[in-house]
């Protein structure tokens, strides 16, 4: 007796991810506005404030937080007189001053001892408003780190919104005709909707839905589409830039705190510095990857044009490639078609993807040097498996374009193909 089958897969709704990224973005924005933007605006306003003699009534080093979050700041109370009326203020600076040791705030307190006279700056329109130090505080630069959170949050939201829109568009176009109708933790009733008899004829898959087409390009002969790579060079460069900024930003802050944090004794600085070496190396590798990705933007890559939007098992299609433009030419160019299995699985909290290429064919292998044009007719073996995409398991067909460039980063682009099941007219009925 078997148990009802169940799935180990789980889905993360797009709404949850958008909420997650929204929290990231809002938190980063709130910190940026409150800790950097508003103080900067106030600082600029205060340039027209009136210098006024003031008397320091008290000054001491105060603390906020506890444990690891314990920080110190100068707590200064001063009074001043405008138009014969006395006013009090405790605003030392527009920027939030917070130190992880008592040394710096104590120096401030020593500079403004109780009973000393100083100059504060008073808002002529509202004498209640005054500040003792109206200039910029270099420590405020660290608040710009909050923009990284904003970038990650906004980037994540855009990614999710675009993914959902793409999914809806594909669904509307019927792209998922042989993808799972339901992938669930516990099977539940689903109404059957058998595909029409001509579901896999070429007409049933209009050119715009199965292969990523570039509709902005010049008009093509009927049925032809320009293929788009799964990852564009510009997109890769932007993504790598964001990741590198984030990684190096975080590592940089830790490194700065470790080396220049006054509370750390000398041996601790050395220890933390050594501990950080692998993280710094990853950061350096990322920087090289970013440079390499931007260099890749200048390489001439071939444009692939297919004669049909999809191809059935046992069918064939024409592929044309043209290399134009670009500042740097590939010395060696290869184009292959391949089919592979992709299995995604979780171990603990990590997700892994294993790939196995089970079919590959060389389409072009040459040393073009200059511009290169070519075409070939590709036949898809009838006895293999059509494209298949479930949540964790996939059969993917793709064109792989690899270019070797002298003294320049090589490139490898993938163009996804949709191989449909055998046309039903070719399927004989079981005796």
């Amino acid at each position, binding site marked *: *007796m*078997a*148990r*009802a*089958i*169940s*799935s*180990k*897969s789980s889905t993360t709704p797009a709404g949850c991810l958008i909420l997650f990224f929204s929290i990231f973005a809002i938190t980063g924005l709130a910190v940026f506005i409150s800790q950097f933007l508003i103080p900067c605006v106030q600082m600029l306003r205060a340039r027209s404030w009136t210098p006024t003699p003031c008397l320091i009534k008290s000054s001491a080093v105060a603390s906020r937080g506890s444990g690891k979050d314990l920080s110190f700041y100068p707590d200064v109370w001063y009074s001043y007189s405008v138009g014969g009326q006395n006013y009090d203020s405790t605003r030392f600076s527009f920027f939030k001053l917070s130190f992880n040791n008592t040394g710096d705030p104590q120096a401030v307190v020593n500079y403004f001892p109780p009973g000393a006279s100083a100059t504060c700056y008073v808002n002529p329109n509202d004498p209640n408003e005054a500040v003792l130090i109206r200039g910029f505080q270099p420590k405020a630069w660290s608040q710009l780190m909050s923009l990284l959170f904003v970038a990650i949050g906004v980037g994540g939201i855009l990614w999710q919104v675009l993914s959902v829109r793409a999914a809806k568009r594909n669904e509307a176009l019927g792209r998922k*005709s*042989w993808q*799972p*109708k*339901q*992938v*669930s933790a516990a*099977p*539940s*009733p*689903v109404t*059957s909707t*058998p*595909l029409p008899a001509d579901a*896999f004829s070429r007409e049933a898959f209009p050119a715009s839905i199965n292969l990523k087409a570039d509709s902005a390009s010049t008009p093509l002969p009927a049925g032809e589409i320009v293929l788009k790579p799964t990852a564009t060079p510009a997109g890769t460069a932007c993504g790598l830039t964001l990741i590198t900024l984030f990684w190096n930003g975080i590592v940089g802050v830790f490194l700065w705190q470790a080396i220049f944090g006054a509370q750390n004794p000398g041996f601790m600085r050395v220890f933390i510095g050594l501990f950080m070496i692998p993280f710094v190396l990853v950061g350096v590798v990322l920087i090289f990857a970013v440079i390499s990705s931007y260099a890749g933007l200048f390489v001439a890559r071939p444009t692939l044009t297919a004669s049909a939007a999809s191809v059935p*098992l046992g069918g064939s299609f024409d592929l044309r490639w043209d290399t134009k433009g670009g500042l740097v030419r590939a010395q060696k160019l290869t184009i292959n078609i*391949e089919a592979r*299995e*992709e*299995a*995604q*699985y*979780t171990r603990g909290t990590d997700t892994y993807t*294993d*790939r*196995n*290429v*089970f*079919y*590959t*064919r060389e389409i072009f292998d040459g040393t073009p040097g200059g511009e290169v044009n070519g075409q070939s007719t590709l036949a898809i*073996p*009838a*006895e*293999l*498996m*059509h494209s*298949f995409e*479930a*949540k*964790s*398991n996939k*059969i993917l067909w793709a064109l792989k374009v690899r270019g070797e460039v002298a003294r320049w980063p090589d490139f490898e682009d993938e163009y996804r193909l949709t191989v449909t*099941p*055998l046309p*039903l007219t*070719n*399927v*004989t*009925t*079981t005796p």
Partner: protein
Amino acid sequence: MSTLEIRTRDGKTQFRPQEIIEGAISWQLDASAEALELRLIWFTQGKGDTDVSVEDTRRFEAPALSGDSNFRFQLPAAPYSFSGKLISLSWALEFVVMPGSDATRFEFSLSPSGSEVLLPVGEGDPSKLDTSKLNTSKLPAWLRARVQPKTSVLQQRNPFEK
């Protein structure tokens, strides 16, 4: 434990896209059930997490403690049953007592030829793959079972061959 059986017409285990799969189910329950459900499903096995899709169902509300019934489904055009190095996809009829966990399953293959598509184990041209020379002892157990002659699991589970 309840006794559940699924039988296909002529004990058939190989089907082609959009073909009709029909047969009979019979049951003998230990206790009254809310419903019985016959599901047409496909599922994946192998290295990846399991994907499951329920393509069609037949539900029998408030069934008697024992009984039988005929069923008939039209199979979809895809996906095909296949086996590769990482993934295999199987079709099955699943007969479930609700509520509870009693169930039985009848596996079959769906493809243009009727038998599951065997993906080449390595890269290359499948037409050049000589399956007779495959050293199956080096394959993972779940895949080895797939490339060996399939009298195996499906027929053992076929009640007609008891």
